[in-house]
């Protein structure tokens, strides 16, 4: 057991304490956890079975048996929002995973190698950035057909350059530092240095970015499924619910209210979590803000 491990718990405990004292972080954490819990519960229990249509009970207002009312097919809105949370989280999470998994190695490689590899990768990044993301996502889902999986791919592709940029910028600032120089002097290769020294030190930066991209992913998924390009019925999604609500807004405005609120609360929670995390992990930034 090395000395490192012996000293580890203290800074970690310190970090958690500091994080919990940060208001943004705390509120964000509570909201995010609540939404995640809701999605989790929906896996084995929802107030009503949403695959059973009850046209006689359609477009009901708020009541004790249906707290958020029912939609145009008599499905319980609360149950649909719970399952929609699962869909939103799954799509955004996997899309962040794609961006992280491909973007971070690319960015770290660009920083470690420099030269033409760096140039080529960054130009490629510029090309992806020049594409209007939403239009391209529409194009991608049109090519491969609408559906949750293709929505994930479409959103994920646009996460790659974001993570590549953050990873490269973070890594570039570390390469001239003494501890990296020491590792190089000790004869470690660039790959090993990246894995052992660079990545752990840019992880907090990447974590903050991941939270932000997660929030953007939820918004993007809602947009795509509003256009009918996300998860397909009968799988409920918040965007699709808003689309269905649109034509009935004059008679049943609550159909549009709750899915929208679900999106706002989820995105708000994730953004607060990201802001709080940034404040805690990077005190210098907090000072500037």
């Amino acid at each position, binding site marked *: 057991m090395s000395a490192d491990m012996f000293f580890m718990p203290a800074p970690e405990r310190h970090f958690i304490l500091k994080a919990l004292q940060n208001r943004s972080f705390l509120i964000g954490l509570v909201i995010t956890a609540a939404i995640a819990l809701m999605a989790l519960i929906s896996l084995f229990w929802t107030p009503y079975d949403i695959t059973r249509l009850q046209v006689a009970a359609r477009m009901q207002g708020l009541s004790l048996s249906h707290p958020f009312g029912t939609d145009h097919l008599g499905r319980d809105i609360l149950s649909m929002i719970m399952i929609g949370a699962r869909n939103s989280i799954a799509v955004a999470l996997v899309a962040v995973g794609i961006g992280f998994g491909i973007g971070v190695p690319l960015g770290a490689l660009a920083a470690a190698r420099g030269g033409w590899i760096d140039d080529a990768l960054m*130009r490629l990044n510029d090309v992806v950035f*020049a*594409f209007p993301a939403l239009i391209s996502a529409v*194009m991608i889902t049109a*090519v491969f057909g609408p559906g949750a999986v293709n929505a994930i791919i479409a959103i994920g592709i646009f996460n790659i350059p974001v993570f590549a940029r953050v990873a490269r910028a973070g890594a570039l600032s570390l390469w001239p530092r003494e501890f990296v120089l020491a590792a190089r002097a000790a004869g470690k290769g660039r790959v090993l240095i990246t894995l052992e020294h660079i990545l752990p030190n840019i992880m907090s930066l990447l974590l903050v970015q991941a939270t932000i991209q997660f929030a953007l992913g939820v918004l993007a998924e*809602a*947009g795509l499924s509003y*256009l009918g390009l996300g998860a397909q019925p009968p799988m409920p999604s918040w965007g699709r619910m808003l689309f269905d609500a649109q034509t009935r807004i004059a008679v049943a405005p609550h159909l549009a209210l709750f899915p929208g609120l679900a999106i*706002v*609360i989820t995105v708000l929670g994730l953004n607060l979590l990201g802001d709080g995390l940034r404040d805690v992990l990077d005190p210098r930034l907090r000072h500037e803000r």
Partner: protein
Amino acid sequence: MTAFLAKRLAVGLITLLAASVIVFSVLEILPGDPARIMLGMNASPDALEALRIEMGLDRPILARYLDWLAGMATGDFGRSYTYSSPVLDLVWERLAVSLPLAVFALSLSTLIAIPVGVFSASRRGSAADTITMGAAQVGVAIPNFWFALLLVYVFSVGLRLLPAGGFPGWGESWAQHWQAFKALILPAVALALPQAAILARVTRSAMVEVLGEDYIRTARAKGLPRTQVLWRHALRNAMIPVLTIMGLQLAFLLAGTIIIENVFYLPGLGRLIFQAISQRDLIVVEGVVMLLVASVILINFAVDICYAIVDPRLRAGR
């Protein structure tokens, strides 16, 4: 400065070329034969073959790519299969909706966000700052199409003040212009709010940073009025991040109105491309996406020029 801009321009052109390769190859693998879609399922093989030859679908892929590229370079974006009119004409027609909408939304967002951001930064830590930034935090989280639905419910369904959708065309008389403008008010507000929230946050943090600089203290110390220090000295120096975000937002607004155009049934660029994709009208999709990519690059270039105007160091130096 000239060298700096020349380099940016060169990078932009290379990006555009790379984008054209991507757009062309992505749409090449799109399932569905455009000729069959045009003629329908019962078309005779002969007619199908004739149309393929007429559309050039029988030629090798590289030749078609080069033709397409050369066409665009000379301003010929091809003809739409479904509208049977030149792509460029369609784009002009739709831009008459999309461009005013984008400019309208960006102006609204800027007019709200910059004063709010400056105000918040100047009273950092106050209750007013906390409340406005809290509101901005919520604004960032609101999907614009949901906000659009709420606006429709309040201003169209409830108050019956503004149309819930559709676009009558710009028309000839002032009364018709006004009707057209009215049709764009709700879409523009729906687009502007989340954008304003982002811009206000960026403006505030840029201003907070600048207000901590020595030259601001100097300006105050020499007795300049508070408002003059804030709006002239500080804001000008905080403009670079603000301009960057505004450039990104204009680019987003030109193309990203696709959902809002669907909410309000506006015949803009976004709807054109959305319909063209579902009808497999590839030439329209290719042309519009390329024009949008070109406009993103152009906007970035314009932002670079703005940097130089705002920051004299860039003008004299590089």
